[in-house]
């Protein structure tokens, strides 16, 4: 199939005077995992909701599996599934009841629906919790039942909105396994995430989105390469040495040096590898003991900083403040 799984042209969604999605162009080929990466409030959910026909675009156009999301919404709905950012299952019902209900709504007969529900619960490791109400599920279990609910009829394309936010590492790994199984099965996956390593791990291509605009798009290595430089990470044996090392890094590399929160790790852009070699010698001569050292591609955190001019965390805090105000 040469046809694109998803194509958007100048997609716009406006809430009041807030341009939540502000002219997004995407081209996603079938069978890939596409990652939409961005901080809180970037417009990830809004984009995905328009593509899943849950929200009407205010401008531009979008086709999903060749169907227009507005004029052929019903055709889109019959071939895609959506797992929202917040669990979209009925909390009062049990796992089995939820899945049987969805199977019935998708056209299974009673016996077929029960069989499918049991099969799904078993595969997702929820067999023991099948008859418990969802409100008594843990966060990881909720995520799994939510994804299971999205594949009652295996879709050709699945939207996963922040599938691992708030999960412990183990549950996160489980969700990653599900995503990999989906891809192996030929399903196209569009997932959003705030975790850079998640996009790095799972996605074939990544679009970085900020303030409703795609600010970069490509494979993980392309994005890293577009930032231009390699990244130098140095860890020294004590905070007082870190001061010294920081100054030397600035002098030698000329760029900005980031001191991590642990106080002893430093990272900086290193455009010239030969400089780095000299720098190591200088550090050693100056008596600054280096306990860890790496020169590699920049992390996606650094990519984000380079692309947006502000680190991811900063944005998150700002949004949190806004939310607190809204609560008040």
């Amino acid at each position, binding site marked *: 199939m040469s046809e694109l799984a998803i194509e958007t042209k100048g997609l716009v969604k406006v809430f009041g005077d807030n341009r939540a999605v502000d002219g997004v162009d995407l081209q996603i080929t079938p069978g890939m995992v596409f990652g939409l990466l961005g901080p809180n409030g970037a417009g990830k959910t809004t984009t995905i*909701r328009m593509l*899943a*026909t*849950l*929200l*009407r675009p205010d401008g531009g156009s979008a086709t999903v599996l060749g169907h227009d999301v507005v004029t052929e919404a*019903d055709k889109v*709905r*019959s071939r*895609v*599934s*959506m797992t*929202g950012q*917040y*669990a*979209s*299952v*009925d*909390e*009062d*019902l049990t796992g089995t*009841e939820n899945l049987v*209900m*969805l199977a*019935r*709504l*998708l*056209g*299974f*007969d009673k016996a*077929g629906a029960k069989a*499918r529900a049991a*099969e*799904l619960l*078993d*595969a*997702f*490791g*929820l067999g*023991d*919790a099948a008859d418990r*109400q969802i409100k008594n599920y*843990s966060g*990881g*279990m909720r995520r*799994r039942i939510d994804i299971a*609910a999205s*594949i009652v*009829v*295996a879709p050709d394309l699945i939207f996963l909105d922040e599938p691992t936010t708030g999960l412990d590492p*183990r549950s996160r790994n*489980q969700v990653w*396994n*599900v995503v990999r*199984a*989906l891809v*192996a*099965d030929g*399903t196209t996956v569009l997932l959003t995430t705030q975790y850079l390593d998640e996009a790095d791990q799972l996605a074939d291509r990544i679009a970085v989105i900020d303030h409703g605009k795609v600010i970069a798009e490509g494979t993980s290595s392309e994005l890293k390469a577009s930032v231009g430089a390699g990244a130098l990470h140095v860890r020294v044996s004590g905070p007082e040495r870190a001061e010294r090392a920081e100054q030397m890094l600035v002098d030698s590399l000329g760029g900005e040096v980031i001191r991590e929160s642990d106080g002893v790790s430093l990272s900086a852009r290193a455009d010239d590898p030969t400089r780095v070699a000299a720098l190591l010698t200088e550090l050693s001569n100056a008596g600054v003991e280096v306990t860890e050292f790496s020169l590699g591609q920049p992390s996606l955190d650094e990519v984000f900083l380079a692309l947006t001019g502000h680190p991811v965390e900063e944005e998150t805090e700002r949004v949190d403040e806004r939310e607190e105000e809204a609560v008040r």
Partner: protein
Amino acid sequence: MTTTTLDTTAEEAGTLDDSKLRSVLGNRVRPDRPGAVSASLTFGWRAMLKIKHVPEQLFDVTMFPIMFTLLFTYLFGGALEGSPTAYIQILAPGILVQTVIFITMYAGMGLNNDIKKGVFDRFRSLPIWRPAPMVGLLLGDAVRFILASLVVLTLSLIIGFRPEGGVIGVVAGIGLTLVFAFSISWIWTLLGLVMRTPEAVLNTAMTILFPVIFASNIFVNPDTMPGWLQTVVDLNPITHLVSAVRGLMGTGAETSDLIWVFASSAALIAIFAPLTMRRYSRL
């Protein structure tokens, strides 16, 4: 002790079986989509399950009618009609209507909750007949309406209500009440979709319903009211519904009342069902 701990841990974490996962994904059964009736009934089934899991919600449906019936009968009965037994003959059909119409509000609250919790996103992304979630919700409500009607009826019979219309008359009266309740529910589904919180839905619905319920002939004969109020009462569809139900349970309903009830029901659906659906598809 140790075994219990181990069990919980295993349960919490669950085991995600890769080969099973691949097999459920590989199972690409795609049945034909269900019809409108089947989809609505599935949502009705969901409403029943919710009653099963959260039986507290039936409290409103049973306790309020009992309280109201007893309170009004014994408080006002003597003063208004000479005796509680005489008053219950007039009050029973009215209180039945009042009870059922009041609990129609919960349709809007339920819907609003579903939206807030995100379940509705799931429903809206399914390729099903679009009004099915709302119709299913109302089907579930019908069960509550009937239950509430039976509570009021039973209590009234115990107190001394003797409907001359017999079983057929009583059933017809309840049936007519359900028709109107189902129609007025579409106002609340619209509110449920528009308002931000279930509490806001409840408050708005209360503000609308209180005057409509009380400016009617449920409790007293409108003859003693000032002229302008009589006009209001006479235009109130609830008045005609109550008259018709009294008639059906008594010696026969006036055709004009029946026409009023059916016409206002049709009008409510014609206005609010499309508005609800429009709002639903543009949430």
